[in-house]
């Protein structure tokens, strides 16, 4: 029954990818908020954020490869890389492709961060806020297990976790104690450079 193995792997890896990605997003937000304690230094948040992001990509690769090579689905490689090119659930699968490609851009630019500079990296990193919800929509829309109790629980927990982190982020802003004077200083510098 190799077909069933591939099919179950696709679904399982998809669910794991959702959980990992949500944790990565939450950790990313917490690092901006400079969350720390005696037992949880700041480099732990950043380190976990990075390593779990790489792990997310591994499970995402597993999710995609097993879906494509499964002879039953007969998706083809084009469907995995070109959004909305799949005959099967065109919209929902296309969203998955978009989310995957955004994540790829985010991870690759992070790995070469010192070459492209902080500003460009940060701009691209904002795409996370597009990649995550698009990924969730893909899971909800095409997931075979979407309406099973355990998958609903996982999705709800991920959405709640990331939602709470975003609310904290919007409430507390950045954890930088000098954020306000720094912003006005930079604005002043930019203003003078433009003239």
């Amino acid at each position, binding site marked *: 029954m190799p077909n069933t193995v591939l099919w179950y792997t696709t679904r399982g890896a998809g669910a794991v990818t959702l959980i990992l990605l949500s944790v990565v997003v939450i950790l990313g937000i917490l690092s901006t908020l400079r969350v720390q304690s005696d037992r949880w230094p*700041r480099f732990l948040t950043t380190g976990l954020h990075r390593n779990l992001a790489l792990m997310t990509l591994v499970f995402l690769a597993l999710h995609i490869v097993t879906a494509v090579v499964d002879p039953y689905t007969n998706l083809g490689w084009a469907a995995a890389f070109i959004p909305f090119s799949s005959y099967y659930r065109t919209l929902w699968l296309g969203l998955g492709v978009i989310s995957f490609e955004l994540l790829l851009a985010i991870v690759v630019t992070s790995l070469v961060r010192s070459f492209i*500079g902080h500003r460009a990296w940060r701009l691209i990193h904002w795409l996370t806020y597009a990649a995550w919800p698009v990924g969730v929509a893909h899971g909800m829309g095409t997931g075979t297990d979407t309406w099973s109790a355990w998958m609903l629980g996982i999705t709800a927990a991920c959405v709640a976790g990331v939602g709470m982190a975003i609310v904290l982020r919007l409430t507390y802003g950045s954890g930088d104690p*000098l954020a306000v004077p720094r912003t006005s200083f930079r604005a002043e510098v930019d203003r003078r450079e433009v003239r």
Partner: protein
Amino acid sequence: MTQRLNLTVDRIKCDGRGLCAELLPELIRLDDWGYPILAAGPIPEHLLPLAQRAVEDCPVLALAIRRAEAVKG
């Protein structure tokens, strides 16, 4: 002529996130506002890997290792 490696911080880029002092307390401590104070002089050989890690992990890429040539001596 020996090559020495120094730790430098770009004060404009630095946001005082404080990761560097956690990763390399041997050479970096934080002032009252959370900004790094670097130990003077070249990075000791045995601390180079840790210094490299601190540079890579700086969230705003403000920390760097620079080559400085010893002029006299």
